[in-house]
């Protein structure tokens, strides 16, 4: 299984090579190397998947790609092992597959960027880190990947270093993620305490065997891990960094902040599904936070004007859906939605990138200044960007949940599970589905279908992008359309393929949860019909609100400012953090900087420095070069040494007297031999 290491090493070498030699390469070469590395990784991922697929039904359900031992401290051993099981291979395929498409896209999108090599080096590094995350056999290795993707994310959000807001956003993401990391670490420690190992398969094996349902220690661990997941996957109340992360280049938004990294939290909770199954309370928390995030984010998406911000809140909302699925025990459904979401959200982001690219070009051409991401400046792009329009329409329909596109099946699955006894969860989730349909339609209306609000010159200058940008859109559009085939509902031969494939991973948790009643055909049909109806209502509302360039929504907003204002203000959550976390922190830090740092630390450091230089200066001057002063010091030293050896068994009084005399003499010698001015 050693070739599994190649999965990680290929993009890692790509990153290293580009960082090292990238400056001397042409753009095409850089793009080819970067995409080639990820492509190679993808091929190996397919091979690995085939190998794991071949294990189906066999006695062994996972493979380990061995590596050297990392550390061994007492009982704890951590090895460089890669875990190849259904879950990790599915994730690998998504990461390398979607990653490859986005690499191809980025070659065109980043054309002419002054830091082209850095961008691709970081992108490759991200892929490597993400693969470490999903393939790590133990929590320690997983954490390495976890931190690695966080680092790449931070570097890429702040990629446009000349933009102040970009570096601010990077900082924000970094800091918020630290809270999550703390949760992850605490969770790891708790699990290690509970099981005595960090190896994931062993943990999964040990937990149900050794602990009963509802063990408080496990609940604590599960909650800690969920804090980690909240940070990485932008769940309430830690989601605030993700919308700001849109300051990064659009391919980054698509790859990291939609398709892969932000789903790491979902991956983690599914990976530890046994833990959540053993802790009903933690599961409930996950479900409630998930659905709450889905609702809050979907509402925020309604009022955004920045095209990427809409998609960002949409991502947060969809991630909430996935956590809802985890919380209600539908682990396979969560992964299914994760996969389809990677397809259609990646697609939507790339489409928005295509729009932004075209808008930038047009604005530049017409010598106009304006925000190329502001939907209020768009409209009527359907004729100008036909390819983008079509693909984005597929993406929008998929996320809205129109049959038979991918999002329809995956979302429906989650709603079905949520409906099983969690009525409130189901109701809210259904409402979110409606909102999802609404805001996606709004996005499409404002961008493509409403009459244009651009100046004539700029509108005339809008041109469809070239094939490097469009081809990836088409690939992803195909996936978004057909992704549902992975896990069709029902009980036929082709149904539930993904869920069955993931069975070895989810089975222990499902076993803990108890008997699982498969849905009857009637339930499924009813659910589908209902959700189609909900989506239709959402689309209809959007059509009513945005069909023409009318002001109906504006009027509504003006009439109900109490509903509208909090949304525009993002519920004041940022304000809240600013006021209660950031500002006190700042004040505290400032106080520390002013009082403690300047007074104590600086004083100490400067003091140490000047002490050394002063004393060095003194001792340097204190060398009058006279043999007799040397001899005197020599004798003093001799007396001291003699006293130290000869008086060791002597009573303390004698030692004290001699010591005092010595000190006196030393002081006297310093005095009588002091450097004198040559007068």
């Amino acid at each position, binding site marked *: 299984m050693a070739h599994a290491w190649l999965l990680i090493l290929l993009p890692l070498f790509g990153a290293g090579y580009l960082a090292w030699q990238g400056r001397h390469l042409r753009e095409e070469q850089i793009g080819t190397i970067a995409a080639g590395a990820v492509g190679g990784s993808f091929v190996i991922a397919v091979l690995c998947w085939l190998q794991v697929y071949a294990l189906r039904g066999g006695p062994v359900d996972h493979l380990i790609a061995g590596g050297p031992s990392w550390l061994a401290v007492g009982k704890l051993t951590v090895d460089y092992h890669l875990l190849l099981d259904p879950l990790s291979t599915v994730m690998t395929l998504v990461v390398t597959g979607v990653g490859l498409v986005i690499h191809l896209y980025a070659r065109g999108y980043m054309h002419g960027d002054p830091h082209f090599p850095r961008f691709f080096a970081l992108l490759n590094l991200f892929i490597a880190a993400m693969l470490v995350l999903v393939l790590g056999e133990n929590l320690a290795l997983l954490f390495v990947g976890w931190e690695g993707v966080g680092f790449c994310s931070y570097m890429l959000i702040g990629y446009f270093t000349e933009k102040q807001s970009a570096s601010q956003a990077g900082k924000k993401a970094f800091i918020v993620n630290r809270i999550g990391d703390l949760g992850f670490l605490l969770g790891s420690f708790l699990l290690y305490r509970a099981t005595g190992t960090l190896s994931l398969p062993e943990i999964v094996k040990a937990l149900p065997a050794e602990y009963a349902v509802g063990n408080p220690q496990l609940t604590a661990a599960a909650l800690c891990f969920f804090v980690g997941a909240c940070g990485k996957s932008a769940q309430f109340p830690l989601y605030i960094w993700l919308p700001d992360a849109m300051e990064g280049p659009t391919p980054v938004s698509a790859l990291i902040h939609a398709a892969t990294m932000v789903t790491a939290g979902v991956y983690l909770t599914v990976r530890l599904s046994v833990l959540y199954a053993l802790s009903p309370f933690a599961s409930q928390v996950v479900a409630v936070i998930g659905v709450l995030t889905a609702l809050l984010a979907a509402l925020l998406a309604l009022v955004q004007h920045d095209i990427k911000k809409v998609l960002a809140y949409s991502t947060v909302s969809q991630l909430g859906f996935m956590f809802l699925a985890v919380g209600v025990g539908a682990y396979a459904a969560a992964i299914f939605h994760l996969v389809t979401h990677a397809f259609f959200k990646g697609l939507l982001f790339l489409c928005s990138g295509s729009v932004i690219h075209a808008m930038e070009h047009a604005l530049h051409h017409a010598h106009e200044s304006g925000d190329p991401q502001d939907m209020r400046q768009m409209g009527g792009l359907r004729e100008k960007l036909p390819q983008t329009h079509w693909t984005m329409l597929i993406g929008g329909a998929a996320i809205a949940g129109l049959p038979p596109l991918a999002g329809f099946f995956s979302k429906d699955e989650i709603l079905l599970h949520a409906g099983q006894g969690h009525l409130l969860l189901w109701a809210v989730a259904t409402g979110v589905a409606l909102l999802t349909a609404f805001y996606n339609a709004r996005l499409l209306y404002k961008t493509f279908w409403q009459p244009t609000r651009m100046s004539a010159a700029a509108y005339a200058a809008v041109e469809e992008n070239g094939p490097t940008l469009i081809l990836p859109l088409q690939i992803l559009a195909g996936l978004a359309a057909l992704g549902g085939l992975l896990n069709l509902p029902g009980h036929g031969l082709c149904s539930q393929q993904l869920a069955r494939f993931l069975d070895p991973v989810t089975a222990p948790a499902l076993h803990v949860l108890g008997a699982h009643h498969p849905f009857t055909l009637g339930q499924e049909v009813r659910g589908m019909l209902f959700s189609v109806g909900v989506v239709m209502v959402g689309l209809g509302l959007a059509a009513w609100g945005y069909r023409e360039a009318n002001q109906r929504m504006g009027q509504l907003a003006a009439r109900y400012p109490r509903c509208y204002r909090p949304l525009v203000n993002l519920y004041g959550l940022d304000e809240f953090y600013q006021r209660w976390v950031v500002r006190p922190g700042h004040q505290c830090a400032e106080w520390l900087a002013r009082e403690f740092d300047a007074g104590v630390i600086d004083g100490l450091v400067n003091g140490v420095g000047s002490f050394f230089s002063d004393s060095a200066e003194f001792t340097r001057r204190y*060398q009058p*070069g006279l043999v007799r002063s040397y*001899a005197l010091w*020599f004798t003093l030293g001799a007396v001291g*040494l*003699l006293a130290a050896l*000869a008086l*060791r068994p002597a009573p303390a009084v004698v030692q004290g007297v001699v010591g005092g005399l010595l000190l006196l003499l030393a002081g006297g010698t310093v005095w009588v031999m002091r450097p004198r001015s040559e007068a």
Partner: protein
Amino acid sequence: MDFRPPDMNLWAALPTAVVGATALVTLLLSVLRPAGAARRSISFTLFGLALAAVGCLPAAIFRPGPSFQGMLVLDPAAVLLSLLLLGATAVCVLLASRYLVHDGVDAAEAAVLLTLGCAGMLFMVSAGNLLMVFIGLETMSVALYILAGLAGARDRTSHEAALKYLLLGAFATGFLVYGMAFVYGATGSLDLREIGARIAGGGAAPGFLAVGLALLLIGLGFKVALVPFHMWAPDVYEGAPTTVAAYMAVGVKVAAFMALLRVFNVAAGGAAASWQAAVAWLAVLTMLVGNLVALAQTSLKRLLAYSSIAHAGYLAVGLAAGGAAGAQAVLFYSVAYGFMTLGAFVVLLALERADDKPQLDDLRGLRRRHPLLAAALATFMFALAGIPPLSGFLGKWLLISAAVQAGQVPLAVAAVLCSAIAAFYYLRIVVYSYMREPADDASPVTLAAETRQALAACLIGTLLCSFPFGLWLLSAAGWAAGALR
């Protein structure tokens, strides 16, 4: 009165005999055939030193025990340090043939004095008896008193250095001999193994022994420049010709530390409780003063002098740690220290101009003026600062882990802190030579053939002591330390 002939195991005496004979023959040749004596005596001396190095090999193989009634112990540790001292002497002879001759010194005289000094050092490292320690030390010292004053014709400070060294050296020797007398009084023997057995058997008078050991520590501490017996070192190093300063910094220190090791770690190991704390304090004081004062130096020679004082402190850490681990650390560090310090002095010599002593400012832009020399200097400085994977790092690591093993954690901490201070002035030298622009009137540096050979020897030696080759030396030092008794 029955006469028992001495057990003359000539294998044990071979290296020293060859060195002594080399000096005598060189002297005779230079007197009998003065024409071309300079060249001939240098090459003959180098040949003799190489022969002596070869002469060490039988001892390494046959392992003669204590010979000449226990006077001479050519054990593996002695062989190891003898090889180092022979190499260092060879390098110094090579340098002397260029630089001392330049100062108007007769090459044959310099070679003879260096060689005789080396003989004294060899006796010290293989001494099995306090008498041998004393005679070896005096032979070495007398040679050095004269060598330090060799440049007196050109530079008055050279005479001054020699006189200072002589006066204070004589003062210190008084302590040393008095200490030997006390130890004899306490144990009834001058033989180190007998002293060790007596101390271990409880048959030594503790009061006399403590005084004797203190006086021995003072006398030998003066030679290795432990604080507060160090004050002569900067003046003498600065005044003496640089070749001689290098010889002192390496040869005297290594030889005297080996003697300290034999007296304290091995013979007086049983009475460790009485001297260990004192040596530890001396080590801390020496590291602290040496490094701190070095910070304020601008004269490169004085800086290296204080650096060598500080390194005596590090070596004393190994002494204070005691045991086989401490001995191993001292042996390894002696060899590593020898090469890197010698190398630093060679670079200094290459930079020296006729009129003045090199200052820190003279290093400006060395990278431009002579990239190879700058790289060599940087290597030696990194090694002295103890930056991995160079020899100094391995050595410091050994010393510190020996101290920790001996339970002397505060000592280890002090050593680490002091090396942190030391890094500052070593790296400042690298910064000056690499990052400062050269002065306008800076002349390009040219290296003489002898300098190049000496530099190469030191560089190879340093690299051989560095990771990974140094691991071999490390195990050799461990083996030699295990065979010390």
